[in-house]
């Protein structure tokens, strides 16, 4: 008698679990589609090619940062330094652009990669908390930036470097170059995460570090590399943005790390590590971008409300995820 009852129950549970798993992975996508449809119906100027291309370019910088952040969070860590590193990358690129395209890319990547390496070594080898370490480098990178620019008084402009500014302002096949670079990065990132031993180790380290150690995976190396990757991508995003603005703007990127984390979590990646997807992150980034654009469309609404709305979305998604993972576990 009880056996039958159990069977019926498990069927229901299984269905609920599948639904829960689907929402956990694709919830942001469902919301994005709804928001885009609503936006298209409400504002005639929203679903135009120009506007959508604008959104794409605007979100591509955050997308690159969130890509690195996804690796970090899946590995069970967090990187708070990316906002500062992004701004620093921009200023370094603008300054180095006087020596040509190569320098404008190499300098920010080298410095930002080094900051990521410092994060990674302190976290993985020094066994320090990622939150504290990257909070320190957030402050450090911002300080370095202010020192380089005479407390922000000096702005480096990009002059006569068409090859470099093309990276930020140009377009190919109607798509902005930053968009193409971001898409390429996501393609490579997807392969790296899902089709390489490194990527599998990232999942394993975040899912159960003890198990990963006992399985003989290179845990320390994996942890170092995800922070290097995050630093490099933040630096690249900064350089591209400098190319777009033709200058290195010092006040950029304050709080951007939180947007990146928000996008990753909206995309269904577990903040506790071990599970997540890049497609989800990309969706989360788009969702944040579209919400901002829609609020701009309203026009009369104070643009600061964008943060309020994004925050609300985040709360809803996180609450639903927590609720779902509880049903899944039962």
């Amino acid at each position: 008698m009880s056996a039958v009852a159990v069977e019926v129950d498990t069927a229901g549970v299984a269905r609920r679990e599948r639904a829960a798993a689907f929402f956990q992975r694709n919830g942001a996508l469902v919301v994005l589609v709804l928001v885009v449809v609503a936006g298209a119906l409400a504002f005639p100027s929203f679903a135009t090619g120009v506007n959508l291309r604008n959104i794409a370019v605007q979100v591509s910088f955050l997308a690159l940062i969130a890509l690195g952040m996804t690796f970090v969070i899946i590995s069970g860590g967090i990187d708070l330094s990316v906002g500062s590193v992004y701004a620093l990358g921009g200023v370094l690129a603008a300054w180095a652009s006087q020596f040509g395209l190569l320098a404008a890319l190499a300098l920010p990547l080298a410095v930002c990669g080094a900051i990521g390496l410092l994060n990674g070594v302190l976290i993985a080898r020094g066994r320090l908390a990622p939150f504290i370490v990257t909070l320190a480098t957030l402050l450090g990178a911002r300080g370095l930036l202010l020192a380089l620019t005479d407390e922000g008084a000096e702005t480096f402009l990009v002059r006569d470097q068409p090859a470099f500014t093309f990276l930020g302002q140009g377009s190919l096949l109607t798509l902005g170059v930053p968009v193409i670079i971001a898409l390429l990065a996501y393609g490579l990132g997807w392969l790296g995460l899902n089709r390489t031993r490194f990527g599998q180790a990232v999942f394993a380290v975040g899912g159960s570090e003890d198990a990963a150690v006992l399985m003989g995976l290179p845990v320390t190396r994996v942890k170092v590399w995800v922070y290097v990757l995050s630093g490099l991508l933040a630096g690249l995003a900064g350089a591209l943005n400098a190319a777009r603005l033709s200058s290195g703007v010092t006040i950029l990127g304050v709080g951007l790390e939180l947007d990146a984390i928000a996008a990753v979590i909206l995309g269904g990646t577990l903040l506790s590590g071990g599970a997540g997807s890049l497609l989800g992150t990309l969706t989360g980034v788009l969702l944040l971008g579209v919400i901002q654009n829609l609020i701009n469309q309203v026009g009369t609404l104070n643009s600061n409300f964008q943060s309020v709305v994004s925050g609300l979305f985040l709360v809803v998604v996180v609450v639903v995820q927590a609720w779902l993972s509880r049903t899944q576990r039962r």
Partner: protein
Amino acid sequence: MAEVLLEAAGVVKRFAGVLALDGVSLQLGGGEVHGLVGENGAGKSTLIKILTGVHQPDEGEVRHLGRPVRFATPLEAQQAGISTIYQEINLVPLLSVARNLFLGHEPLNRLGLIDSARLHRQAREVLGRYGLDIDVTRELRTLGVGTQQMVAIVRALTTGEARVVIMDEPTSALEPREVDTLFRVVDQLRGEGVALLYVSHRLDELYRICQRITVLRDGRMVHTGPIAELPRLKLVATMLGRDLTDVRERGLTQLEGGHVAAAAPVLTAEHLTRLHVLDDVSLTVRPGEVVGLAGLLGAGRSETLRAIAGADPLDAGGVSVGGTRVRGGSTKAAIAAGIALLPEDRKAEGIIPNLSIRDNIVLAALPRLSRAGLVSDRRADELVATFMKRLQIKASGPDQKVGELSGGNQQKVLLARWLCMEPRVLLLDEPTRGIDVGAKAEVQALVDELAEQGLGVVLVSSDLEEVVEGADRVVVLRDGAVSGTVEGDDITEDRVLALLATEGGGRDG
């Protein structure tokens, strides 16, 4: 004996001056299952950790294929073909079965990317080799514990080309059916010439699959040899360090049996059942009675206490205090009904070392001492003074930090905390572990006194003597089920040992 693949020779290990292993030697031969048994703290885990490179021996050496080796990490041991299956499953729950099986060794295609199709095919193949039919695309956590364990074992076998497999209580969470599957795999490995070290406290299993057995006690090897030459009863006696024919009467323990036990039971626990842990355990305690719970490590003693105290959920069964049913799975309900549990690990689950004796004692009683949310200091002080006197807590004063007290006095503080609540039933889990002989006698006398005052007491202790001499009735547990009860004059170490060692009778039998 077959060729020795892995061997510990005269291994000595100290932790902070405490001798954990004292000259232990052990030889694992190919094609042989070697059982390793011992009570808590006997040194089993330490020995395994030394064999697998987690710890290094202070003296003596580990020899692999006859040559002395020093594994610096578990990985090195693994690469040498020594795989360990731990009690808890060391896989990644959020990854699929196939990914877990080949993590770090995934088949790659020409571009250096993981070949998903081949990964899944190979995963199915290796599982099939051991007669396992598991959907390799499923997330590991969605599988039963037993199946997860099989995956862990198969992983250890395939990735390391294991020649030596160490299994640390692999069956503690398995269904009988899964145990059968495991033993089939074990037999298959033995046939392939693998050396297995099998740690378990389930006697039935040991006699079913082991050829040789080694018994550790207090860090020393007290027996090693073919299991056929060691009868069950002798094995248990060896483990517990008891001489069967001559049970000594040392008179060290102070607990006295023989309390009045005619009244209606104050505690009735009926059919306590929890999957893999407890199997239909029933127990009654009358006021003034001390009921001892005996059993080997893992027999379900602490688990029974925790179940009665509402600390763990139950699948079936229930608890009544004074005839009134207590809502299950809630410590709050149990406490309200008058059940007090002194946990085994008083450091982790009981005392707060940085708080004063006073604060530690009144912690649980605060709601009773307060009016309108304010605690009356005067009443608290009175209460603390009373208990410090009654339990003879030796301290400079009520404001001394509990962390500065001796183990015995810490235990008394904990006891005082619960007595403030005026309990009707006292559950004591290893109340005298880790405290010196003098304090031990005091705690035992105290337990006696409390019973005389009409409390029902359930006493769990690994010290068989303490149980035998202190209890009015001894309930013997085996594999989570009651294997017998002895009462009154029948309570002797021999009788209890015999019940500990009985065959079958546990789950599924």
